């Protein structure tokens, strides 16, 4: 069941991105940025966590979860340390995506040449 919903919810988020590409003619960078901001706002409203509960990877794999995770880290830390935590807790939850991208980016650049 979770597999089915992961597929559907993930697919729908991608269709939203595609519509931003094709209908509003936004560049990939603009589209992804808007989606991340959107994810952050959804988490602020407390709507993203239920979506993760429901769709699993369908909600955590799209880039929107990046915004969600950033807010989540900030809120968790703010809970413990007050307003300063908003700044310090930011990367607590998201570090995996960024560090994996950096690590595999460097490894990739050591291993591969662009194929063109």
């Amino acid at each position: 069941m979770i597999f089915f919903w992961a597929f559907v919810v993930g697919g729908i988020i991608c269709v939203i991105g595609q519509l931003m590409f094709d209908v509003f003619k936004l560049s990939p960078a603009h589209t992804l940025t808007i989606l991340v901001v959107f994810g952050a706002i959804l988490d602020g409203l407390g709507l993203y966590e239920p979506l993760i509960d429901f769709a699993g990877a369908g909600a955590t794999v799209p880039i929107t979860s990046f915004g969600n995770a950033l807010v989540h880290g900030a809120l968790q830390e703010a809970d413990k340390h007050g307003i300063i935590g908003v700044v310090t807790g930011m990367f607590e939850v998201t570090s995996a995506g960024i560090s994996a991208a950096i690590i595999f980016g460097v490894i990739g650049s050591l291993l591969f040449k662009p194929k063109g």
Partner: protein
Amino acid sequence: MADEKKKKLPPKAQAYQALQDKKEEKRPIVKNCMMAFLVGGTICFIGQIIMTFYIHFFPFTEQTAGNPTTATLIFLTMLATGFGYYDRLGQFAGAGSAVPVTGFGNAVISAAIEHRTEGYIIGVGTNMFKVAGPVIVYGVFSAFIVALIKTILTQWGGM
């Protein structure tokens, strides 16, 4: 919005753009959306498989399995990007391969691979986030704003 900008153009350019719009090959939106749904859904599906695998065979809960899943997907993206498959997937999948975290990974890794000819410090180091940078910058900034508002509302407003 776009129309307002067009009004500033000389009438000749306006007339031409109207003609251009008629002749321009339109983007196949329905097909693109279908492909985005299928490919994006499949990547998330694969993500769910990986996640379930981590939950069952490693000490990760539903909460904590997301991070290793992301890392695994980005590792797979590195291979797909390095062997030159991801850009081809991107051409027909569109947002289907760009919106999942693999698209973020691809943006970082492709830039890193591309600029290795300029050296590892300047080339790879400075260009790595050339495409994916805005995602981090505005992700962090918007998260800051959202978290700040929410913290103020719950901690002081709720008092």
